[in-house]
């Protein structure tokens, strides 16, 4: 799986969660999307973990700066045994 493929899958999740369409790019982050507040964030993370079958470690999502870094984190966790 590549970063682009991860972002494509993320796009479908974001399309479900957000009412206004958001086009995901590696550079985009929460502050660029009005609907993406701390509440929707919790919900997004639950959906992402389910969809990708991963579990993030405590505090690490907070440290990603944009969708690109977040996609890389998903990849890293997916590659773990």
């Amino acid at each position, binding site marked *: 799986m590549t970063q682009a493929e991860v972002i494509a899958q993320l796009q479908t999740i974001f399309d*479900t*969660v957000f*009412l206004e369409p958001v086009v995901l790019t590696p550079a985009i982050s929460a502050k660029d999307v009005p*609907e993406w507040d*701390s*509440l*929707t964030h*919790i*919900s*997004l993370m*639950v*959906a992402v973990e*389910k969809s990708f079958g991963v579990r*993030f*470690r*405590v*505090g690490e999502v*907070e440290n990603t700066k944009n969708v690109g870094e977040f996609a890389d984190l998903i990849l890293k966790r997916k590659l773990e045994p």
Partner: protein
Amino acid sequence: MDFGEIKQLLLANDPAFWARLKTQTKSARDFEELFLLSSLRKKAHARKLENPSAQAKRIRLAILGGYSLYPLHELIEHLCEVDGSPVELWQGDYDNYISEIMDDDSELYTFAPHVVFILPAERRCTYTGHLTDTRELQQAEAQRVVDGVLDLARKVNEKTRAEVITTNFMLPARHDLGAFRSRTLGSDWSFRKWVNLELGLNAPSFLHICDWEFLANRLGGLAARDERSWFESKQPCSSTLLVELAREVAQLIFSLKCAPKKVLVLDLDNTLWGGVVADDGLEGIELGDTSPRGEAFKAFQKYIASLKQRGVLLAVCSKNDLDKAQEPFQKHPEMVLRLDDIVSFKANWEPKSENIRAMAPELNLGLDSFVFVDDNPAEIEIVRQFVPEVTTILLGADPSDYVAQLADCRLFEPRSITSEDAERTSQYRSDAQRKALEATVTDMASYLESLQMESVMSEFVPVDVPRLSQLINKSNQFNLTTHRRSEAEVIAVMNDKNFAGFSVRLKDRFGDHGLISIVIGEKVGDTMKIDTWLMSCRVLKRGVEEEVLNELVRLAKWKNCSRLAGVYLPTPKNEMVRDFYGKMGFTLTAESETKREFELRLEHFSPRETKIKIVRQAYAGQ
């Protein structure tokens, strides 16, 4: 769950959005689904899409506790609004609940809540000493936790008159301490169980327990917790349990203003038994312990009987001929439910919606207090469409799931205690006490003596007439002649000098049984004919029968009679008194299929001894 359609409704500003939202909210189990529905709801408000069934009056709800209340508050707000009881929310700060409650000037009190929901911090519900400390020491600390929560609740209630909801405490789900866990009150496991029990048993009537222990247990201890979400954002539990917690709070708030359902309307074929009685016959239906399916149907009936015991009225609505439908109730040995358990029995070929509509005035209840259960989707649909006030439950394909479906329907839960409930409870309790006593007293005579029974015998008086007529018309088992009488006919007996009728009341040290026996004697020459002798079976073998005979003999002599004549008229239900007169010392004088006649000559009669104190005799002073 598909969100495409509901989003389209929202984008089109279609008011049908709200009905769709309600349906999807009902079935949403996942946190992110429910959360998404809630954001759609908020967006609908932002777009000024009006909810046609929205209520103007909002309940002011304050949420406070030892956790982040975010996004729990969001889910609660959503569920309450969709349930039709919208709330205006006030949230306490993270772990600031004690000072928010104790400080008289806190914002909580400015908000003036109608309902306050408290989630006390779990980390304060733990034993701080050593695992091997004495039980007294550990229990004292657990008691302090209980008192702490109760004091907070009391303080809030005193200041605001609000209803208070508090969570209790989740139990640990890890193997820690092993088997030692349950040998000490010092483990979180035992400590919290004890606290939860005491909290519930000592909750005053304004305090409602949101049973977090139960909810976590129902979901599964491991799935209930999420340590990461605690460290990251001070969440009280896993997101899955958060949904259940929010649902429970919404349910508690809903139940504060809505009465539970009162009537359960039952289908028959493939609901109470397997098969179709009109086709398969009495012997062909599946019911009872001879097959697994039959056992499942019987278990369902037992559960329904337990609902009846709690006060739910049972009714039947079946597409059948009446006699065929009633046959199992009368003749099938494995039936748990019998005809006298059913307050309204509709078996005919009219639409079920019409039958149920007809029951409401008959039982003097609103249709909104009815619940209808059927295994047939078409019948459920017709009731849903034509009597939408009625709540329907479509039973699944497997009868072994039927009990679970009813037990989880949340429609028949007892609510906050009214004085009437309390009275009923005290009645239950005195029954239980009586039974406990029965178990401790070894011989019957000393048991009866210990009951301290007192009885009042009274001639018929106008104020008793409705009760007399009611008992005369419904008493079946201990009833020698089953002569029925209307109120007017009872009054006629009362005013006729040739009749000597009397009623018997009984009380004992556990409670008052009320009017429990009725006798009507008719003087014909020198004979007192016993026209009616009936008694409530609840007081069998207490000596009431003997005292009634004493009284009857006394009245017969007073009316210048020298013999009593009794007759037993058999019915399908009064087999238990077939030999009653014989046992009471009467002589059998004639016997046929339809009647057994007895007599008792008064010169040989000596009054029977019992443990009942007769406080008053009938016709006293006449």
